[in-house]
């Protein structure tokens, strides 16, 4: 009875339990089994039937519950108030669905109870939160993985392309190729070591800089390169361009489009400095100062001129009329240390004793009739420089003596003065005579000859170097045409053949007049043999050419007079017409006693 009084009204407790949706099992010690208390909720009946007697048939009831109930006595021994939850477990119901249950064991006084509840909406909420969280973690894991994969792939590709780039770069550097890449703004994005070496700069001075600041081209070349860069096709600079700087360089440019970035340009630079220097040297060999010719004989002359220019001695230039003796004298002067001082030329032919003396040494006012004022001579005027005395073989004996004194003492005395003046002038003399013969004949002082002939340059006649004729003729053609505006471009090969087979007694001067004549006659842009003066086309190679035009004295005198009258008394013009130098012309006038006024 007492036990009964502890229990609530059975119908009330049934209602309460039904309202709580809880199953209550009580352990029946004597029977050794659990007994369901009150009316169980509907879900319980669906899963386990109206009663549960697990101790009798454990395989029939829930394995989880069985496991839980097996260990439950341990909980009850824990004393009153001890509650242990089973944790949620899932059971399938008879409709093929599932339900999640949780059990708790507790003891009330002597009574040992197990409460089982079905987890409801709170549990479902928790489940869906965990589900979402895990799904998200899996998704993030997948994303991270695909990122990682992409990253690995990209790193792999980057490494591969870096390797390719390094290989290409190494190859480029190994090849010693001077190349640079310009970006879309014309700034240098990359330059090989060879380029930097060629330009003599460090990488940081080049990279990111505008090309025209790094490549110090001359203004017009810069414009040309700009133009080439603006073009879209692959081009070359044509000839070498000069990079100005401490030591200037000649480079040839090759411009390519960067196929990956059409606005970027790849420049390949080839150093042509050495080649340029060699070409220059070659050109120099074909012409020297104003002398033209690359025959062995002329090359020897150029070398001789260079050698002679190095020393300060008197030089004698020997050569037939028209061979360009004055040009040699000028070349010696311009190659010598005196190049910045005056170069004066005097023609000693056809001048009287006193005129020549006054011309060379100057005079005092009143020294002779017509000497109205003091006048310095060429020696004084050429102070520090070079005095070229042409036709030295023609100077009268008194002048020879005075000249010898200058050469020995470095002093001159003006005509009409007593006091000598010191001069520093280099004398370069020229003659078409054989002065040794003149000495033998007694017309030239031996001591003066030895003074003059310390150094000698012998100019070959043109007929001895016919291979120079095409070069000479072409160079003359260009010079003659330039001021006239005529566009005669070349000489026909037949014309060159005629020119080369002619004996040229008047040498280069005669060739020049022939070309001048031909330019006037020429109708097209090419000189034909018919354009040449008749004496050249008609002439055959002279078997034994001489310095003089081989005519009898009478014929020669007539020729001189005709030339003079044709030139209206202008001696320079008359000499030109005859293809002889003014000096020779004057000498001839004196010889034939012609007084031209």
């Amino acid at each position, binding site marked *: 009875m007492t036990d009964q009084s502890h229990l609530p009204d059975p119908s009330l407790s049934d209602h309460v339990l039904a309202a709580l949706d809880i199953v209550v099992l009580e352990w029946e010690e004597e029977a050794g089994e659990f007994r369901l208390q009150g009316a169980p909720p509907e879900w319980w009946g669906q899963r386990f039937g109206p009663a549960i007697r697990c101790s009798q048939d454990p395989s029939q009831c*829930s394995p989880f519950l069985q*496991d839980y109930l*097996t260990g439950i006595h341990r909980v009850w021994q824990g004393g009153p108030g001890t509650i242990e939850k*089973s944790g*949620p477990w899932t059971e399938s119901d008879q409709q093929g669905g*599932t339900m*999640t249950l949780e059990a708790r064991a507790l003891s009330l006084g002597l009574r040992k109870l197990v409460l089982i509840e079905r987890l409801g909406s709170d549990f479902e909420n928790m489940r869906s939160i*965990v589900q979402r969280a*895990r799904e998200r973690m*899996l998704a993030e894991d997948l994303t991270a993985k695909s990122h990682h994969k992409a990253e690995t792939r990209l790193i792999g590709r980057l490494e591969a392309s870096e390797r390719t780039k390094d290989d290409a770069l190494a190859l480029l550097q190994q090849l010693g190729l001077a190349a640079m890449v310009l970006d879309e703004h014309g700034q240098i994005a990359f330059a090989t070591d060879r380029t930097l070496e060629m330009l003599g700069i460090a990488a940081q001075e080049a990279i990111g800089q505008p090309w025209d600041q790094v490549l110090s081209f001359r203004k017009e070349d810069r414009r040309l390169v700009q133009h080439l860069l603006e073009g879209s096709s692959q081009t070359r600079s044509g000839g070498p361009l000069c990079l100005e700087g401490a030591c200037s360089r000649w480079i040839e440019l090759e411009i390519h489009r960067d196929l990956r970035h059409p606005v970027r340009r790849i420049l390949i630079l080839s150093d042509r400095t050495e080649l340029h220097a060699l070409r220059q040297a070659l050109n120099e060999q074909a012409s020297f100062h104003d002398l033209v010719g690359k025959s062995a004989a002329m090359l020897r002359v150029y070398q001789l001129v260079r050698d002679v220019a190095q020393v300060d001695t008197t030089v004698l230039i020997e050569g037939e009329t028209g061979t360009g003796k004055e040009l040699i004298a000028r070349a010696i002067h311009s190659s010598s240390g005196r190049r910045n001082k005056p170069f004066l030329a005097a023609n000693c032919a056809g001048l009287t004793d006193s005129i020549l003396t006054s011309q060379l040494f100057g005079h005092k006012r009143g020294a002779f009739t017509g000497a109205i004022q003091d006048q310095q001579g060429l020696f004084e005027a050429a102070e520090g420089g070079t005095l070229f005395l042409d036709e030295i073989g023609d100077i009268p004996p008194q002048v020879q003596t005075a000249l010898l004194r200058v050469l020995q003492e470095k002093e001159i005395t003006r005509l009409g003065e007593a006091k000598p003046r010191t001069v520093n002038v280099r004398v370069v003399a020229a003659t078409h005579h054989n002065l040794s013969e003149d000495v033998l004949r007694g017309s030239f002082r031996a001591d003066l000859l030895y003074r003059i002939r310390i150094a000698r340059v012998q100019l070959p006649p043109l007929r001895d170097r016919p291979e120079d004729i095409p070069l000479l003729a072409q160079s003359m053609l260009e010079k003659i045409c330039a001021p006239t505006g005529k566009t005669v471009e070349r000489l026909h090969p037949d014309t060159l053949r005629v020119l080369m087979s002619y004996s040229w007694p008047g040498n280069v001067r005669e060739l020049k007049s022939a070309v001048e004549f031909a330019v006037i006659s020429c109708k097209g842009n090419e000189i034909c043999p018919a354009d040449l003066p008749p004496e050249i086309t008609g002439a055959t190679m002279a078997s034994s050419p001489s310095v003089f035009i081989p005519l009898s004295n009478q014929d020669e005198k007539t020729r001189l007079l005709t030339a003079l009258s044709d030139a209206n008394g202008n001696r320079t013009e008359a000499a030109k017409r005859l293809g002889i130098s003014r000096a020779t012309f004057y000498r001839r006038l004196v010889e034939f006693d012609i007084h031209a006024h």
Partner: protein
Amino acid sequence: MMQKKVCMLGGFAVGKTSLVRRFVTNVFSEHYQTTIGVTVEKKTVTVDHQDVMLMLWDLYGEDEFQHVRESYLRGSSGYILVIDGTRKATLDTARLLQQTVVRTVGPLPFVAIINKSDLRSEWEIDQPVIEQLREQGWPVFFGSAKLGQGVDELFAHLAAMLLSPAPPSRICP
């Protein structure tokens, strides 16, 4: 008939539920529904002519939200450590769980399975690591709940271990 409690342990989504379902009912679903708490499935296997009922405790996955309850482990005869081959981190989880079991219920027989072998190209666990596990005394299986590969062998092997009189080989905590 002899009954043996076997716990399925492993990180979340490694395929514990899928392996049990493939073994018990021979079905597989691509759809992932995480297990909360426990579901117990039964299947009888025969080892050396002796039937044994495996009570398969499919536990929830171990992660920061849920840690394995020691009460679930109690009374186990053995366990299966499930690892997802495509997620290296699940191997670390399996290692921790193995230590937990040893700490809680002692050195029970177990087998490890690296699941999802149908995705072998995406595996993050390579051969040297597997060799290392084997050297530590882990019986390591490969399998796929999706394709049903290695599943029966896995459970059969464990059942044999459970019935074998010899204690489990080497168990490293």
